């Protein structure tokens, strides 16, 4: 009696699992509703594994989102310090809304400094000519 060949089924399921794992990780990092500032130049080949700090605009307020979790102003420095202690060479990418006033970005930069970071990478969307 012929048996059902399950190999194609396993192939498809494996591809779907890997796909959703990758998309899920990217989605939490990068799909926060942030309208990035534009830039015609910059460095484009950043290695994976950066800590992505999103600063999302909500009217006149801003919300800091890391790994899909909203981080309160008081916890930001501690969160960044914990990440920096665990992975000292991990770059930090700051994805902030272009229309936010600097007063909403400044606390994030101060938290980065308190966490012992020497620099951050400002993320911008590529515009023509780059």
């Amino acid at each position: 009696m012929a048996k059902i060949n399950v190999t194609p089924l396993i192939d498809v399921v494996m591809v779907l699992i890997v796909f959703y794992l990758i998309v899920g990780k990217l989605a939490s990092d990068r799909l926060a509703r942030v309208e990035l500032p534009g830039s015609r130049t910059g460095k484009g080949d950043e290695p994976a594994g950066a800590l992505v700090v999103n600063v999302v605009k909500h009217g006149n307020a801003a919300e800091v989102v890391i790994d899909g979790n909203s981080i309160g102003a008081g916890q930001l420095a501690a969160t960044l310090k914990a990440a920096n202690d665990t992975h000292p060479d991990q770059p930090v990418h700051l994805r902030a809304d272009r229309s936010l006033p600097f007063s909403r970005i400044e606390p994030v930069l101060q938290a980065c400094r308190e966490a012992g970071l020497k620099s951050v990478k400002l993320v911008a969307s590529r515009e023509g000519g780059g």
Partner: protein
Amino acid sequence: MKHAFRPRSARAVYEMQTGPNMTPMVDVVMVILIFFMASAAFLGPEWFLKSSLPVRAAGPASTEKPPTRLTFALTHNGGTQVVYKIDDDSGVPMSMDEAHEALKAKISGGNPEGFIVLVAPSPEVPYDDVVKIHEWAAALGVSKVGILDEASPPR
């Protein structure tokens, strides 16, 4: 008398008539294609502009010539205005476009490594304008760019 030729199997006859089975290859190529299309959409085209976080610290006196500090103090009142300072001078007020030209004029023809570009925005300045100065500096080859805020060294 035995057969002179081996009889062809059904598979051999099928392949002879239709060519190799392309279905598995098309399956794999389609999956790869969709994967890269989806990845490109999520990864998006982004640039990364390095920004230093200056701290107040005492260090040993250096005998080398320190880099020239170009400071852009930004204020926003309707539009963004710039006060452009070279090292510790009193600064010249100008528009963003004029500041861009001034930066280009200062760095073009010189060694970009001999300059530090500092952005000192006031709280109401849009973040977009802060990034713009980073972009100008990066385009001119300046690698030392930083943002000054209230906790930074004196402006």
